[in-house]
C-alpha cells in the first residue's frame, strides 16, 4: 500500500516541531499537529515528541484536552511513538518533578545515574536486546542523537518492553515496545539517515496496522 498515513504529532509547546514534520513528510507520512483531542479522531498514528520536563508537558496536555484521548488511544493499542520526553511520559510518573504521567508502562522516569556528563547530549550507540521491525535495515549499535537527563525505567516485571539499550555511565532503555506502543529516548528526526530509516519503519508499521 502506498497511501500516506496520517500521523498526529502532539504539540505540547516544547519547541522545535519543524524537524519531526520534515522527517515524517520525507518518509511518506502526512503530518497533523494535534493541539486538541479532536485531532486524534482523524489519524492513523500518534507521536508525542518533545524535550523538557514532564510536569509542564502534562499540564499542557491536560489544558488542551489531550490527556484523556491519548490514554484512550494507548488503551486501544493503536500505533503510537513516544520520542524522548514522549517515551518517558508513557511511564507512571517522573522523578524529575513528581509528575503523574500516562501510566501505559509500569515504571518511572528516573535520573540517569552514574553518568560522566549530564545532560547526556550527543550521538550514542543503540544496542538491540531483541529484533523488532522498527529497526529493520539499521545496524545493531548504530549511532542516534540523544539529549536528556532522565530515562524511562521499566519495573522489573515489565523489562520485556525494552527493545534496545544505550550506555552512558551504565545501560538504560533507549527504545521500548509493546504491541503498537513504541518509544525511543533518542531523536530519530535529528539522527541522519538511520533516524529517517527508523521513522520510515514506523510509517510502514502504521500502514500495516
Amino acid at each position, binding site marked *: 500500500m502506498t497511501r500516506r498515513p496520517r500521523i498526529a504529532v502532539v504539540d505540547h509547546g516544547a519547541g522545535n516541531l519543524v524537524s519531526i514534520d520534515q522527517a515524517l513528510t520525507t518518509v511518506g507520512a502526512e503530518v497533523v499537529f494535534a493541539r486538541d483531542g479532536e485531532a486524534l479522531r482523524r489519524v492513523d498514528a500518534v507521536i508525542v515528541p518533545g524535550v*523538557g520536563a514532564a510536569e509542564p508537558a502534562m499540564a499542557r496536555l491536560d489544558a488542551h484536552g489531550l490527556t484523556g484521548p491519548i490514554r484512550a488511544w494507548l488503551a486501544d493499542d493503536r500505533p503510537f511513538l513516544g520520542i524522548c520526553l514522549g517515551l518517558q511520559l508513557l511511564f507512571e510518573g517522573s522523578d524529575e518533578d513528581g509528575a503523574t504521567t500516562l501510566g501505559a508502562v509500569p515504571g518511572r522516569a528516573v535520573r540517569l545515574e552514574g553518568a560522566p556528563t549530564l545532560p547526556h*547530549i550527543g550521538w550514542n550507540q543503540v544496542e538491540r536486546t531483541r529484533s523488532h521491525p522498527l529497526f529493520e535495515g539499521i545496524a545493531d549499535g548504530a549511532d542516534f542523537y540523544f539529549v536528556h537527563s532522565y530515562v524511562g525505567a521499566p519495573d522489573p516485571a515489565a523489562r520485556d518492553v525494552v527493545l534496545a539499550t544505550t550506555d552512558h555511565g551504565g545501560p538504560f532503555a533507549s527504545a521500548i515496545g509493546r504491541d503498537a506502543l513504541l518509544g525511543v529516548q533518542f531523536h530519530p528526526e535529528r539522527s541522519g539517515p538511520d533516524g529517517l530509516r527508523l521513522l520510515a519503519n514506523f510509517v510502514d508499521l502504521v500502514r500495516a496496522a
Partner: protein
Amino acid sequence: MLRRRVIPCLDVADGRVVKGTRFVDLVDAGDPPELAERYATEGADELVFLDITAAPERRGTLLDVVERTARRAFIPLTVGGGVRTVADMRDVLRAGADKVSLNTAAVADPTLIIRCAGRFGRQAVVVAIDARTVAGTERQGADAADAPRTWQVVVNGGREATGLDVVDWARRAVDLGAGELLVTSIDRDGTGSGFDTELLRAITSSVPVPVIASGGAAGPDDFVRAVRDGGADAVLAASIFHRRLHAISDVKAAMAAAGLPVRLVHGAVA
C-alpha cells in the same frame, strides 16, 4: 559509548553564510541550508549558526534560514546571536532549532538562563562563554604552576571585559540551568594556534555538563588535544571547514586514530 562531536560553525549575516575575521572583511560563503546539508553529509554531528546580523529588524531572515536548514539537514542545530528574551528563544526553536546559545544577554541578566531553561528545559540552553587570559597570569617559565593562569569573561564579540572569572561564571551558568557550555578562547580565536586546552580543562573539571571547545583550530590534531587534554565533549570550528583546509572526515579519522570515540559516517565525502 557517547561520541565526541565535531561541529562546524556558520556565521550568518542577513541570511547568508559569511566568512572573515569576526565582523570584519566579511565574504559571502554561500546559502546556509545548502552548506548545512553538505556538512551533514560529510559527517558533521551538529551545526551551530551564529547570527551576526547587525540590525534586529532583519531577525525574520534568520528564522527563515533556520527553518530552511532544519528541513534539509537532519542533524541538531544550535542558534546563537541576538537571543535576549524567552520569546526570542521560542521563535528560534519554533523555526526549527534544537538549542539556543546565550552569551552577552546572559551575562547582563543571568536570570535569562533560569527563565529559558524553565520554559524549554536545560538541554535546550547552551551558554556561550568568551574567555580571555587575565593579563599578568600568563605562564612564565617552569615554575608557572605556582601562579595558575586565570581567564575573564568578555562580551560583545570579545570587545568588552566583564571582570567575571570564567570558571566562576561557568559554574554559576550551570547552576542557573545551562545544559551545555560553548567555550571560546578569544586569545586563540582566528589565530590557528590550537585550542586553549588549559582553559578547557579548568572548566571541564569544574562542571558536569558537556563542554564544546572553540577558538584556535588549525588541524585535526588540535581536535584530538581539545578532547584528550582539555576534556571537551565536542569541538567547534569555522574557517578550517569553510576554507576546505580540512574535511570533517579527516578530523574524525584523526580522532578515531587517537582512540577517541567518534561517529563515523558511511560514505561521508571529503
